[in-house]
């Protein structure tokens, strides 16, 4: 039995944590939240220099070939630090889509730049209310030109290029689009988590290059499944950060002459947060194994990891505020950074009802085999 990260990866985790504590303290997220910039460009550059963006990208495409377990380790730490960078959009989603569906030429053309952080890509799937489903896709590519509206698009305001799900000749597929092109409009959206950029992207006859087969929905699903595991690690990291904050506050804050952490109401609340976080962590680990080994169980593992992680981070973030009492719901305290991020991550790539439904689909499929 070897169901834990290797000593090397644990060392990476420690280094990552130390690095992010220095270069991505919560005030970095707060600057973005307060609208000073759409993302932390300095942090992005540093992260790129460390090779993190190419952690799971093969060396022939400019990555460092650390592998997916390594990427999971990084994701957990980024979640813990509520880092305000377009990592998930550019790497978990766009780069993965190109890896999964791109031609050799496309991989050569795009991946090295994404791995180097020279270019930022976003993943444009949603078109307003709805969970991932081909019937929701109305954006259309005709004669190589994309028209339609995508919203919300995470990091759509800062990306150089987009991987766009669009309809062409009745089928939904993926397309690569340069965003610095006439016909592209971008509008920043106000969202629950302003520490991450979100945009409404309009396309009017914009050149679009096919990425993978015309019937690309299976690839979309595969990309979402794989991303779900990486998102789960971010969420587990966030939940763990909330639990730490809450525990520390409960030890330090006194009421009625004793630390509030000595009251069972707080103790049992935090025990429940611990339980949810550990369950989510274990489900995420299984996802990491499935991701790294590209196992047949990946879709089921991904759904389980995501459902568990959504629940844990939601619980941890809201009860962290509750443990902090009055200070918890002030803008000045950091609790809300995590509360916002918990919901942002819970909705990106599809909300809990979608993933629960997917999970049972996969159970049915498993039983039919």
């Amino acid at each position, binding site marked *: 039995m070897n169901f834990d990260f290797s000593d090397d990866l644990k060392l990476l985790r420690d280094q990552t944590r130390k690095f992010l504590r220095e270069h991505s303290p919560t005030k970095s997220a707060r600057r973005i939240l307060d609208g000073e910039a759409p993302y932390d460009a300095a942090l992005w550059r540093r992260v790129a220099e460390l090779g993190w963006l190419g952690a799971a990208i093969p060396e022939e495409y400019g990555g460092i070939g650390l592998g997916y377990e390594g990427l999971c380790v990084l994701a957990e730490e980024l979640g813990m630090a509520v880092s305000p960078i377009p990592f998930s959009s550019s790497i978990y989603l766009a780069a993965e889509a190109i890896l999964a569906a791109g031609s050799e030429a496309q991989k050569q053309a795009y991946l090295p730049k994404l791995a180097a952080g020279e270019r930022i890509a976003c993943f444009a799937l949603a078109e307003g*209310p*709805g969970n991932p489903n081909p019937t929701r896709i109305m954006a259309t590519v005709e004669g190589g030109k994309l028209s339609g509206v995508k919203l919300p698009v995470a990091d759509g305001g800062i990306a150089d290029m987009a991987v766009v799900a669009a309809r062409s000749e009745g089928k939904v597929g993926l397309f690569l689009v340069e965003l610095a092109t006439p016909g592209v409009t971008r509008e920043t959206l106000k969202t629950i988590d302003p520490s991450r950029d979100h945009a*409404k992207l309009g396309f009017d006859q914009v050149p679009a290059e096919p990425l993978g087969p015309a019937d690309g929905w299976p690839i979309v699903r595969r990309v979402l499944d794989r991303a779900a595991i990486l998102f789960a690690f971010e969420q587990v990291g966030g939940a763990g950060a909330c639990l730490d904050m809450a525990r520390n506050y409960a030890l330090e804050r006194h009421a*009625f002459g004793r630390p509030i952490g000595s009251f069972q*109401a707080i103790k049992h609340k935090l025990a429940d947060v611990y339980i949810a976080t550990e369950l989510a962590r274990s489900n995420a680990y299984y996802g990491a194994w499935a991701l790294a080994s590209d196992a047949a169980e990946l879709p089921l593992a991904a759904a389980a990891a995501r459902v568990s992680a959504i629940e844990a981070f939601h619980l941890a973030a809201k009860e962290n505020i509750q443990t902090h009492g*009055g200070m918890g719901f002030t803008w000045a305290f950091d609790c809300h950074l995590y509360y916002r991020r918990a919901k942002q991550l819970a*909705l990106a790539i599809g909300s809990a009802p979608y993933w629960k439904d997917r999970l049972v689909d996969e159970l049915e499929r498993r039983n039919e085999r």
Partner: protein
Amino acid sequence: MDFNDTPEEAAFRAEVRAFLDANAKLKSEAQPATRRRYISDRDELTRAKLWQAKKAEAGFARITWPKRWGGRDGSAIQQVIYNEEEARYLVPGGVFSIGLGMCIPTMMGYCDEATLQRYVPPALKGEEIWCQLFSEPAGGSDLAGLRTRAERDGEDWVINGQKIWTSGAHYSDYGILITRTDPRAKKHAGLTMFFLSMKSPGVEVRPIKQISGTSNFNEVFFTDVRIPDSQRIGKVGDGWKVSLTTLMNERLAVGDAPGPDAEDILELVRTLELEDGPAIRNAAVRERLADWYVKSQGLKYTKFRTMTALSRGQTPGPESSITKAVSASKLQEIGSFGMDLLGMAGGIMDTELAPMQAWFQEALLMAPGLRIAGGTDEILRNIIAERVLGLPGDIRVDKDVPFNEIPSGRS
């Protein structure tokens, strides 16, 4: 059982309606009310003062107060009837409830006639607004843990310290203030109550920005603020006893967590299409809708039972604590679920893009504060356990110790 007024209640209700019809617009006749009730506009204060003056003139400003103070010696059920009726009209609300509901009643119990003659009428007419300076950074749920010092200096007291969570401090004219006058006495014994002008030198008010982006509360800093001894309320060292009058009134005033409810989820799902069909046909949606509806109705009819008790001349007990204990966390879950239903677009808060003017998203950001302010989920459950069910209080390690020897966690 019925939902009808007694003849006396019906007569009073008619009187109230006549007053309201003459002086205000029915909500149903006005512009469709905006959902985003969390944010108030800037003219609200001026309009609130005007409206309060009208109410006072008609004798509706404080129905249960004695006639000599501008009340009508009315009953609690009459106040409830007035509130019910007023809720149907578009009138500015809220800014006087702390002063008239908590501060002035406390003063009435302890101050001399001259003082009351000076302060009660302007408060009633809305000319002067009062706030309540109780909570502190070191004393939230544990109110008596407060540290703001009052030290005697001749005929004055000199105040240094900080209050927090003070609603309306930034527009208030006066406040009642609880201080620690003897840190060597036991926790509840060394406190003394005062009132003061919020314009006193050394008083600084800073709004607190909440995670919802609004500022419903303030921090208030006191630096060598001088209060004459004549503005003391009650005896030196009796502050805790005096404060209880105020707090009892607060518990009764704590109500529903405002925001979207089961009916709003129903409105959302009646038109929303999910991937597999109309949201209203989805069994998981229906179950949650039923669960929340049942809770809301349960609270509604619990209030009706309380009103019946009032109507029969009984005094309702701490049972009303259940309203906030249920509705604040329900609001949090409804906000969250409403967003989940919108899938990947659930996080959008632009009011023109998000369904129902981003009402669910606003609720998610407002709910954490509602689970805390006015008694946390945990404090409310303690109150129910102790005062309704008669279970023992928590073990207290801070009761029989001089205040300055109680562990505070400060190094």
